[in-house]
């Protein structure tokens, strides 16, 4: 699957102006704080409506401002792990994890619930409310929730920033496997290029709203 | 269903002005006994009741504290005009708190304003509530209205005016005798001559929705037995 992003969007003083095409696999987005990385993901996910431009997944046009096309967020089937966990505070961890599955159309289920729970070591937390999770625990739940919604594209905004090294070393290979097995393309924002250097098939370096 | 529903023929809903509550509640068992009609009474302001009858309220009998609102219904053919009677009368009195009540002769030009001093005269709302309208007429014909018009404390109804006086907030008030008698916190310091205001009349009539039961109850209310109860409450009966 290829992802085509070609957008212009004003954010206060910053002018976001990005044109990239990525093909299947892992795309890393790196760049200093305030470069516009999160905003770019927001545009792809449908959380921000860009001023101008096009977003396409293969032939599926998600945004085309010239043609007045704008597919609402919930129809895009794009998994998004936000920079903050954004767990639903009124639902247990289990129900947070299950939230996206209501809407996932697939019959076969490559992301089996138990697999994800095991991988992210969430077993002991399932009955917990989000207010009682540690920072890293919450971020892992957010990652699991996105994976379990069976997306066709995964957006990760520093998903491992507060996850410890040991678990990071487990999660990254798992993501690799997912990409390999079900060809789930991933856009990965990070401050730690080391995390993705060896894996990323493409690295997009951003600064001040532009690809550099 | 309230009245008129099959199987409950012997129920009658009466709409009555609030000021009749004490008397009617006392009479209810006697009414039932004498007429075999079980009455339920809805007490509210005459204006509200009249408008409800206009809107199809299932009341069979209307006892108003006010001629105007009975006329209002009469004009719209909502009462059986043949049944309309002036059931009761009342007397207008000047009251003061029981603790410091001194008689005040009510004659043309009597010094009410001076007696009030900086205090206020509690009356029912003179623009709207019947007792207030009578009070205003009486004071006008006695030539003292203008001198007290700026010193009024108009109340929602007679009972509220009574309250202002019995609580000592107002040094004087004008209410019906029937109300004054019922409150031990006030004393009657003078009675307005009947000639000083239009006759105080409580008209009653069977509504167009009312039937024989309503007529029978209205008839009972005009018997000596009923009148005795009304009289004891301070109403005028003839």
């Amino acid at each position, binding site marked *: 699957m290829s992802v085509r992003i070609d957008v212009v969007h004003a954010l206060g003083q910053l002018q976001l102006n990005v044109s990239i095409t990525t093909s299947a696999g892992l795309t890393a987005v790196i760049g200093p704080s305030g470069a516009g990385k999160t905003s770019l993901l927001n545009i792809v996910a*449908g959380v921000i409506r860009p001023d101008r431009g096009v977003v396409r997944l293969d032939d599926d046009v998600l945004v085309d401002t010239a043609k007045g096309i704008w597919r609402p967020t*919930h129809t895009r089937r794009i998994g998004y792990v936000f920079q903050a966990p954004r767990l639903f505070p009124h639902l247990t961890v289990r129900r947070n994890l299950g939230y996206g599955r*209501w809407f996932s159309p697939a019959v076969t289920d490559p992301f089996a619930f138990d697999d994800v729970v095991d991988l992210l070591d969430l077993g002991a937390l399932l009955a917990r409310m989000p207010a009682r999770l540690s920072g890293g625990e919450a971020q892992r739940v957010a990652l699991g929730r996105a994976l379990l919604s069976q997306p066709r594209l995964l957006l990760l905004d520093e998903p491992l920033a507060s996850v410890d090294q040991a678990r990071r070393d487990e999660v990254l290979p798992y993501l690799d496997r997912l990409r390999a097995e079900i060809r789930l393309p991933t856009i990965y924002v990070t401050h730690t290029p080391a995390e993705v250097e060896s894996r990323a098939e493409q690295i997009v370096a951003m600064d001040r709203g532009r690809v550099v | 269903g309230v009245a008129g529903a099959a199987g409950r023929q012997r129920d009658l809903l009466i709409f009555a002005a*609030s000021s009749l509550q*004490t008397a009617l509640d006392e009479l209810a068992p006697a009414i039932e006994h004498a007429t075999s009609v079980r009455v*339920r009474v809805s007490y*509210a302001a005459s204006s*509200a009741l009249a408008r409800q009858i206009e*809107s199809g*309220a299932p009341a069979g009998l209307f006892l108003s504290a006010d001629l105007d609102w009975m006329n209002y219904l009469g004009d719209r053919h909502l009462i059986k005009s043949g049944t309309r009677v002036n059931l009761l009368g009342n007397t207008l009195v000047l009251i003061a708190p029981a603790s410091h009540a001194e008689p005040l002769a009510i004659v043309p030009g009597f010094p009410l304003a001076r007696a009030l001093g900086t205090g206020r005269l509690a009356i029912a709302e003179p623009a709207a509530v019947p007792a207030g309208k009578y009070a205003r007429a009486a004071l006008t014909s006695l030539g003292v209205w203008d001198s007290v018009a700026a010193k009024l404390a108009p109340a929602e109804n007679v009972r509220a005016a009574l309250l202002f006086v019995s609580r000592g907030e107002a040094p004087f008030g004008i209410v019906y005798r029937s109300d004054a008698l019922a409150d031990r916190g006030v004393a009657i310091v003078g009675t307005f001559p009947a000639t000083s205001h239009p006759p105080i009349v409580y008209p009653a009539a069977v509504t167009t929705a009312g039937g024989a039961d309503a007529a029978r109850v209205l008839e009972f209310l005009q018997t000596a037995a009923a009148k005795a109860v009304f009289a004891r409450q301070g109403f005028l009966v003839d």
Partner: protein
Amino acid sequence: MTDAAIIALSLKIAVVATVASAPFAMLAALVLARGRFWGRSLLNAIVHLPLVLPPVVTGYALLRVLGRHGPVGALLESTFGVVFAFRWTGAAVAAAVMGFPLMVRAIRLAIESVDRDLEDAAGTLGASPWWTLATVTMPLALPGVLAGMVLGFAKALGEFGATITFVSNIPGETQTLALAIFSLIQTPGSDRAVMRLVGLSVGVSFAALMLSEYLARRVARGRS
């Protein structure tokens, strides 16, 4: 009427008024909190009307519109056989209308304080706006819904002016505690009886408040 019967009737009217109007209040609150359409200010003003006008006016308007001869009242009667006039159902309508602005404000306030980021997150997980509303926004606004219902219920217990003007003061049918108290206040020498009914009112509302606080605490505890 015995005290127990009056309390039972008052409770029935207040509960029905609160429960039946809650969905409409949620809808109105939602539209006011989130809608961006031309008539929004107008809707806002209309919702507040029963608060702004003297209750007698509201009652009179209800009588005119929902009374037997009123346009809506006549229609309801002929089509559905539903009659509000001079029935306890009408008293519930009056109480609901009078409590409506209170419910809407509380719910709206709660909806407005829901974190939009969570709604975005629900969207990326595939939840449509309506589903997000049902599973995220409204559950998070639940404390406001509860607070609104408490206000509506309390108002329903105390409502007097609109009720007596719309459905009169008929013992056993429309005479709630508030109306019974009013009637008694009109009767000199009944201070004792007034105090008794006032005490009952206070007791009923105290119980209702305790219940609502208990529920609110449960909601809050469920999130920590």
